[in-house]
């Protein structure tokens, strides 16, 4: 088992920058990817999407992909599964209920078991932040993080980026990206930032392409420290003011299951932060409205907006399959074309 800190190090220099200690095809955090990696993933997504379906099944024909889901999921699970199948891979789904996880089997043992059963790549959804790192250390396999606790959801950030690029660049969506690709673009992320892994992956990715990210939400759901998570991030608690500056708006679900004890007045919340028709018309009539789902219609977003002309929500889901095909091809692909770009940690 590869140890992350096995090399002799000099004391008194607390530091973490080291070579990526995981499988080069893994994506545990969006920060694992250099912009070159992002470019090749976007390119591969377009190629795979446009490829003849029969030929496409040869890409990962009979390769074995496990989906290990400790939390429920509709979009992510289905699109990863469809992506794997469209590339010809065999998939097997293990979910926390109805597996030995219920009997107390550890994540490590579950990973080792899946590997022994022939899994070549594991897609993990887990309720605990950092769980993909445990699985990676235990198995050494390529791990794709499909959402871990409050930490990250990197494939969502990539599909959100593809959605944004499609709207901003049109046909050239798959062209390589650079640190100026989103220069002058302001993206507002609104809602329960604190509990959102989607927010974290997006706020770490988009500024690297030159975007300015505004976070909007009440104190209880958006601590001030969020602005220091990385460069290019600022907090604008006045949602209307944030909207005025934004070309892109990403709405987040109010995670009712996580609100215990927060004492949030939902009527007050809707008044200040709901994406509704009047607000959008007044402050951001041309902005693209996104939402990673699941939505709570009538709470953070109204049906008029979710189903309206500004909405890219269904489109996001569609991009999910293409991006996840690219991630799977990268994870299992011809022994690491991706490995060449040995993903250093940011």
């Amino acid at each position, binding site marked *: 088992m590869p140890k992350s800190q096995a090399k002799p*190090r000099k*004391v008194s220099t607390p530091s973490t920058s080291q070579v990526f200690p995981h499988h080069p095809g893994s994506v545990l955090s969006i920060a694992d990817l250099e912009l070159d990696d992002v470019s090749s993933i976007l390119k591969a997504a377009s190629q795979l999407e446009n490829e003849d379906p029969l030929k496409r099944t040869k890409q990962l024909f009979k390769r074995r992909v496990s989906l290990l889901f400790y939390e429920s999921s509709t979009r992510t699970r289905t699109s990863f599964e469809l992506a794997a199948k469209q590339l010809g891979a065999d998939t097997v789904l293990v979910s926390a209920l109805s597996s030995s996880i219920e009997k107390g089997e550890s994540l490590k043992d579950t990973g080792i078991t899946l590997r022994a059963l022939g899994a070549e790549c594991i897609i993990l959804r887990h309720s605990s932040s950092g769980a993909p790192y445990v699985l990676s250390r235990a198995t050494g396999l390529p791990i794709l993080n499909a959402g871990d606790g409050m930490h990250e959801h990197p494939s969502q950030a990539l599909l959100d980026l593809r959605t944004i690029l499609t709207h901003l660049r049109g046909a050239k969506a798959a062209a390589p990206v650079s640190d100026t690709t989103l220069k002058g673009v302001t993206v507002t992320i609104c809602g329960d930032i604190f509990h959102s892994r989607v927010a974290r992956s997006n706020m770490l990715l988009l500024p690297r392409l030159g975007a300015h990210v505004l976070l909007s939400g009440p104190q209880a759901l958006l601590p001030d420290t969020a602005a*220091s998570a990385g460069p290019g991030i600022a907090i604008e608690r006045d949602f209307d003011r944030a909207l005025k500056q934004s070309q892109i708006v990403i709405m987040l679900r109010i995670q009712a299951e996580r609100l215990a004890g927060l004492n949030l007045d939902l009527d007050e919340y809707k008044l200040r932060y709901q994406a509704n028709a009047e607000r959008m018309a007044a402050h951001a009539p041309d902005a693209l409205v996104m939402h990673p789902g699941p939505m709570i219609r009538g709470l953070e977003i109204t049906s008029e907006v979710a189903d309206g002309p500004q909405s890219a929500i269904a489109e996001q889901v569609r991009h999910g399959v293409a991006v996840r095909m690219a991630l799977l091809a990268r994870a299992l692909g011809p022994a690491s074309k991706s490995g060449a770009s040995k993903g250093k940690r940011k």
Partner: protein
Amino acid sequence: MKPILIRGGRVVDPSSGIDADRDVLLKDGRVSAIDAPGKLNAAARQDAAEIFDAKGLIVAPGLVDIHVHLREPGQGYKETIASGTAAAAAGGFTAVCAMPNTIPVNDSPDITRWMQSPERGAQIRVFPIAAATRGSMGEALTEYGALKAAGAVGVTDDGKPILGDSIMRQTLVAAARAGLPVIQHAEDTRLTGGCSMNAGALAFRLGLRGMPVEAESGLVERDIRLLAELKDSRAHLHVAHLSTAKALDAVRKARRNGLHVTCEVAPHHFVLNEEAVAEYDTHAKMNPPLRAEADRQAMLEGIIEGAVDSIATDHAPHAAHEKEQEFERSPNGITGLETALGLTMAVLHGKHKLPLSRIIALLSTQPAAVLNLKGRGSLAVGSFADVVIFDPKKHWIFQASASKSKSKNTPFDGWSMLGSVTATISEGRIAYRA
């Protein structure tokens, strides 16, 4: 037990102000004589003493760790008193103070005596620290007088801080009357529910709930306020594993005001900062958590200027399967007995040029004084023959797999250390030899 003459070494004994070449004669479990090189040869011959050649080595009072978890009774799969003290001896320690969060909790004279029984197979001296309240439940005080008579050297509910003002006040009063220090794990647990690392931007980015600095400093400030209100000069508050600049400032201020407040800092809190958590390494998970770089620097400054009394490891062994879990599920704590001297030497002596006498004071003389361990932390004639002999110039690589502890949960596996232990002598008996 044969007498031992330690010959040709450089004696560093802050308790008697010696830092010079001296020979040391150990006899009947005590330091029998200490004199200029060669002067004790005749006496040694007369006693048929074993000769220990310490040329080029430091001879110092055995190290004293006032904060360890030996896991016995109850959790022998993590550590036993025998294995923990073997690790301690390998690390140069001749006395360790064992925390009461065992199973059952050490809240009785019986358990206190059980821990010190020869049947436990301790390689060095074990001083139990007893629970301050029954079962460490924070409700009813234990019997401090009887616990002290059984050998307890302090009281604490380590890991379960005493939050209630009234019970903490009672604890301070009763402990002062019994002549025992009150050791507080300063954490306002009302602010740290579900938290697994230091609060701040990194915790946010990692999606982990963070413990604010104020959870520590707030409780230290509260304890100091209670102590000040007592006006009982015998009352002694000792702050365990202090980790924040803010709490250290509170301790400094209390001391300026003449209060009897002491504190300890663990090596990991002056060697590592919260960045070590970045890959969800559970070997970097402990409580108090690794803090921001500014707090790490504050710990170094506090140690160097003398505001910190003691370095203590908070040696907290856990089995591999417990640490190989999701970060939030993994238990807190790391082992520390075999890396304390090597890290302290590398950082404080090697990098920050703290003289050896200060290193020994921080690891031996002062901790012994904090918990009033008579005859420990000193090579003065008549003291216990507790000695560490080490090579202060030797760099070595710590290998967790070679550790004598039952558990290998350390973030320092593969790290370069300075100062390697040649031998540890506990009450005149060689407890460890490299």
